[in-house]
């Protein structure tokens, strides 16, 4: 790992972004978009090695829509996606104590807020490594 990999964070919660950014900045170049539309524009403009995606944004579960859109896109299909969500905690009111169904959205990995810094770095490295191995780089 000579050059620093690029990670895009799409999350509308500035406090949380500041938190995971502080963790990821240790090893990666991070770019932030605070809504899915800007996130999509950023993905189209530049290439990223990993996407950290929030679920509940904008009008509802727009992170889910974005993950599905990425999987349908030829260029972006192979980019690893790490969903970091406070879903259970944020809307425990609507979804009390239930795990998110694994078939709900096609992502590579799902983590729940609050995240453990070491675990986040570990998962990010594993996802980037697996994706690069897949693409033969």
């Amino acid at each position, binding site marked *: 790992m000579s050059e620093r990999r690029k990670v895009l964070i799409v999350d509308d919660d500035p406090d949380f972004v500041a938190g995971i950014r502080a963790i990821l900045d240790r090893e990666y170049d991070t770019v932030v*978009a605070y809504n899915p539309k*800007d996130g999509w524009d950023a993905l189209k403009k530049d290439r990223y090695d990993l996407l950290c995606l929030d679920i509940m944004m904008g009008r509802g579960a727009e992170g889910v829509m974005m993950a599905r859109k990425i999987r349908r896109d030829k260029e972006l299909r192979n980019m690893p996606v790490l969903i970091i969500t406070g879903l259970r905690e*944020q*809307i425990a009111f*609507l979804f009390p104590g239930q795990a998110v169904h694994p078939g709900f959205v096609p992502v590579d990995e799902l983590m729940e807020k609050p995240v453990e810094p070491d675990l986040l770095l570990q998962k990010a490295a594993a996802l980037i490594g697996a994706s690069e191995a897949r693409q033969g780089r």
Partner: protein
Amino acid sequence: MVVASTAGTISFREEVENLLHAEEGVSLIRCIQCATCSAACPAVEFMDHTPRELIALINAGMRDEVMASNTYWTCASCYACSEKCPEGIRPADVMYALTRYSLWKGTFNRDWVAPDFSRRFARTILRTGKSYEPGYAPAFIFEGGFPGMVREMRMAVRLLSRGRLPLIPSRIKRIRNLRAVVARILPLDGIE
């Protein structure tokens, strides 16, 4: 607004606007404080801050005051404010954005009727495909005290006599199809 890796965090106003990124309407910074929204609002007398005040609070970055306000839970969603705003701001969409924000962050007041009602409403729709008013009565009929209860019951009798109040909940055909549609957007497990 993609922020480069060195930039700082965003303001509360921008945070609210990011919740509205998929809606029509212009930035809240365009608000000229003319109070046309407050004048148009039929529910304003029940609000602790008028819509105009709420927008001013958001623009001033006063998050705690905004989140503690009952304004966005009191909104009747009539959209009069959005229709009349001379600057093209859509305050009704802002109200919806703030209710979502408070649900996701868990900052809403547990004693308020509106969040509880939203939950019961969503649950009823998922089970039967339509709203069933008598189903909400046991939870909310005591809200207005004894006079309120009598008022509600008289209303119910009048509705019943005109056949406007179903006694038995009915279900739409092919409820599974509706549930499949909703399941594309939200995990259903926890709503029920």
